[in-house]
């Protein structure tokens, strides 16, 4: 996942550019950007405190830790999978995001300040969405361990109204959490309108590489939860045999690519919402997740 996340970003960037009739950057571009950032010097302004030295590392490692908890490649739980359930995974991702925000606020730059308040505004509204969606999935699997939920959706719970509603809610959550259109435009360069990219405005060099890489991995983790736990819980390796693992890697990569192209399709089709309209977007998402929970209660 460490190595695949930049490729996914590259594929999505190029696909998006193609949709705008541009040639677009090469799909290996994110790797070249990472290489370049790792060879530049880090600069922080003199106002920053110790937070800036730990934030990049934590933000970078949070998705990696969560990847140990969710079924990335195998149907059986990895040794560390019982350390935390889905809520725990959400909290680990949240801790990484929080440290990034603290580091951004720490610099005292007006643009990062705008980003922090906006991201928290969206985060506050997305929180009930995350919890409702997670609890609905947990109710289906009768457990909050992602592996158990994966087994449940692989079985009779697959074609139920609640499952379909849950999928829609989770896709809307990914769009909001990963800062994609219609919530936020990741390619814009208008400082005043940006939300997510503004957080890293004061980061440079290796720190920027860790922030960006962490962000791409966070998108991949949310995507893996969607494709491997909720939407298409097949194609995972039942054993640690190299052949089975290889197939699982291919299947997961293919599923993530399809998800990425779906997100790009949404980006082609929609304009960005005004900041306050994002509240309405998330309200609808929460309503869909709540309906999914209701559908379980009825059935």
């Amino acid at each position, binding site marked *: 996942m460490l190595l695949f996340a930049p490729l996914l970003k590259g594929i999505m960037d190029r696909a998006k550019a193609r949709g705008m009739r541009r040639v677009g950057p090469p799909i290996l571009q994110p790797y070249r950007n990472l290489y370049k950032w790792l060879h530049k010097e880090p600069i922080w302004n003199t106002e920053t405190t110790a937070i800036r030295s730990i934030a990049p590392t934590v933000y970078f490692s949070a998705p990696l830790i969560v990847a140990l908890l969710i079924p990335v490649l195998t149907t059986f739980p990895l040794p560390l999978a019982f350390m935390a359930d889905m809520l725990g995974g959400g909290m680990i991702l949240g801790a990484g995001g929080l440290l990034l925000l603290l580091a951004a606020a720490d610099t005292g730059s007006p643009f990062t300040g705008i980003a922090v308040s906006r991201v928290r505004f969206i985060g506050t509204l997305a929180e009930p969405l995350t919890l409702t969606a997670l609890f609905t999935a947990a109710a289906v699997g009768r457990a909050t361990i992602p592996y158990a939920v994966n087994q449940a959706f692989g079985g009779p719970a697959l074609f139920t109204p609640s499952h379909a509603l849950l999928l829609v809610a989770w896709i809307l959550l990914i769009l909001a959490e990963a800062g994609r259109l219609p919530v936020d435009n990741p390619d814009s360069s208008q400082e005043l309108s*940006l939300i997510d990219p503004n957080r890293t405005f*004061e980061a440079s060099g290796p720190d920027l590489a860790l922030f960006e890489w962490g962000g791409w991995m966070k998108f991949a983790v949310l995507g893996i939860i969607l494709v491997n736990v909720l939407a298409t819980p097949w194609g995972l390796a039942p054993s640690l045999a190299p052949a089975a693992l290889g197939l699982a890697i291919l299947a997961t990569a293919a599923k993530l690519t399809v998800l990425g192209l779906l997100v790009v399709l949404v980006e082609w089709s929609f304009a960005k919402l005004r900041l306050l309209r994002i509240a309405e977007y998330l309200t609808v998402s929460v309503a869909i997740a709540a309906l999914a929970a209701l559908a379980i209660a009825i059935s």
Partner: protein
Amino acid sequence: MFYPRWLVNLAKGPAVLRRKVASRGKAASPTARLFARSLAIRHLDAGSCNGCESELSLLGSPVYDLSRFGFSFTPSPRHADLLLITGVVTDAMVPLIRATYEAMPDPRLVVAAGACAIDGCVFRGAPGVVGNLQDIVPVDRWIPGCPPSPDDLLDGLLALVGRAAQPRGEAS
């Protein structure tokens, strides 16, 4: 002089794209080699008439699309590898240019684009106009023109990072 080129470009597509662009940097300096395929540009308008800006904005258009070379524009000097200065440099802008350059992480490059940024053009010697940009920040490349066409700009950037377009089937 300019117009025949426009007509040729209209008929055959932009000149810089008709030539072969080296996929790898062949630059002597390690800085240019590092940026050969990944270059974030911070544009700084030091007092321009917007002629250079309208040409610059064309670089992101479907025809030129500088992202195909791995180049991009960035709003933050912290993310920038190259400072692109356009317009007449006045006394009031000197501290800002210096501050932007200081805010960029090493290694970094500076390009002055357009006749005004190079020597003031028709404003040379006017009160409050700085004669030489080189005294403020070390300029790595000058891209002349009033305004420089998107072709010139892309050519200059590619040459700076050692991926100079080689003329294909025509004399250079």
